C-alpha cells in the first residue's frame, strides 16, 4: 500500500544534513552571542548618539535578506580578498554576525530592564562597574533576555536553512537533493519538517514557560 524508494543510505545522508544544520547553528549561536553581548554592552554604554555607527552596521544585518548577505560575503571573500575560504566558514561568519545583530538588541533590552536605582544602590555600596555588571545586571538582565534569546537561537537554526547558497549541504538542502532523485517530495519534506519541529517546538515551549514564570506580573 505504502512503498517508498527511501533507503537506509538516504537516511544516513539526511542525518548528515541534520548534523550540519546543528553544527552550523551551535557555532553561530555561540559566536554570535559572545559578539552580541559585547556589542550590546557597548551600545548601552555609549548611548544612541555615540553608538550610531555600531547601530547602523548592526541594522544592516537585520534589514538585508540573509541570502544576499551570504552571497555577498562569499563573493567578497572569494573574488575580492581571494581567500580560499570554505563555504562552511563563510556561512558561520555570516550567521554569527546575523545572530550578533539581533543579540545586541536583546542584551541592550535586558540591561535597560534593570532599574537604574538598583544599579546606583550597587555602586553606592562600593561595587565597581565590573562588579555591578557581573553581580547585579547579569542575573537580572538574564531573566528578561533569556526567553528572547531562546527564540533567537531557534530563529538562527531555521535561518541556517539558507546556507545552501554557499555550498553547505545542510538538512533542507540534502532533502532537496533526495527529492530530485527520488521524486517523493511530500514524504521527504515531512521528514525534514518533523526534524526541525521536534527540535524547535520543545525549546520554544520552554522559552514561553520561562517568560511566564519569570515575568513580574
Amino acid at each position, binding site marked *: 500500500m505504502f512503498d517508498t524508494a527511501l533507503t537506509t543510505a538516504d537516511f544516513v545522508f539526511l542525518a548528515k544534513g541534520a548534523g550540519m544544520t546543528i553544527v552550523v547553528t551551535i557555532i553561530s549561536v555561540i559566536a554570535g552571542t559572545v559578539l552580541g553581548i559585547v556589542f550590546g554592552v557597548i551600545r548601552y554604554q555609549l548611548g544612541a548618539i555615540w553608538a550610531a555607527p555600531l547601530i547602523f552596521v548592526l541594522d544592516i544585518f537585520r534589514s538585508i535578506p540573509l*541570502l*544576499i548577505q551570504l552571497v555577498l560575503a562569499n563573493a567578497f571573500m572569494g573574488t575580492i580578498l581571494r581567500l580560499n575560504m570554505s563555504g562552511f566558514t563563510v556561512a558561520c561568519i555570516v550567521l554569527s554576525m546575523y545572530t550578533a545583530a539581533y543579540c545586541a538588541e536583546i542584551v541592550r533590552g535586558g540591561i535597560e530592564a534593570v532599574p537604574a536605582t538598583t544599579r546606583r544602590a550597587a555602586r553606592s555600596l562600593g561595587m565597581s562597574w565590573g562588579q555591578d555588571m557581573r553581580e547585579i545586571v547579569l542575573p537580572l538582565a538574564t531573566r528578561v533576555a533569556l526567553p528572547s534569546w531562546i527564540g533567537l537561537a531557534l530563529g538562527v537554526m531555521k*535561518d541556517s536553512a*539558507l546556507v545552501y547558497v554557499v555550498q553547505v549541504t545542510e538538512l*533542507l538542502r540534502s532533502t532537496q537533493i533526495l527529492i530530485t532523485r527520488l521524486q517523493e517530495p*511530500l514524504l521527504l519534506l515531512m521528514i525534514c*519538517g518533523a526534524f*526541525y*519541529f521536534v527540535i524547535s517546538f520543545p525549546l520554544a515551549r520552554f522559552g514561553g514557560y520561562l517568560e511566564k514564570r519569570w515575568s513580574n506580573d
Partner: protein
Amino acid sequence: MFNYTFQWKQAMARLPQMLDGAVVTMQVAILSMVLGILLAIILTMFRLSGIRILSAVAKTWVEIARNTPALFQIYMAHFGLGSFGLHLSPFLSILIGITFNNAGYLTENFRGALKAIPDTQTRAARSLGMGAAGAFRHVVLPQMLRISFLPMTNQMVWAILMTSLGVTVGMNTDLYGVTQDLNALTFRTFELFALAAVIFYAITKIVTLGARLIAARLFRY
C-alpha cells in the same frame, strides 16, 4: 587596495531592471501581509471560538509556522502541493508560503495583544446587547490591531526579506531573482548583489519609517 576591479557601472546600468524586481518584491510582500492579517484574524477567532476542532486548527497552524524554516514552508507550498497534482506558479508558491508564515506569527502577536485588552470590555459590550461577533468586531478587534501594529511592521519587514527565498522555487521576477539572472549574464556577483542589498535596505527603511509616521498619525490620543 584589493586585487580586484570594481565594475559599478555595469551594475548601475541594470538598476532599472532591479527596481522593476523590487516592485514585484513589494507586491508579494504586501499581498502576503494583507492576506496574512486576514487569516490571522480568522485564526484568532478560531482560537477564541471555544470550539475544540477550530482552536486545534489555529494551534497547529501557529506551531508549524513558527517552528519550521520559512524556506521549508515555501518548499511545502511548491513541491508539497505539487505532489497532490496542484502545480502552482512560483509567484503563487512564494505567496502562499509567506502568507502561511505571516498568519502564524501574526496570530501569536494577536494573542499577546489580546492579553492587554481587559475581559470586562467584552462583557460590557455583551451586556449592552452586542452579539459575540459584534463585540469582537467593534470592541476587541480595533484595539488588538492597534496594540500589535509594531509587531505587524516587523512582520512586514520579514515578509520583504523572505521574498528573496522565491528564487528557490524558480521565481525570477522579484528583486533577488532578477539579480540572480543578471549575475548569470554578467558575473559581477559582488556589485550586483551589493546593489540589491542597498535596495533592500532602502525598502525596509522606508517601510519602517512610513509605519512610524502612520502610527503617529493614527494612534494619537
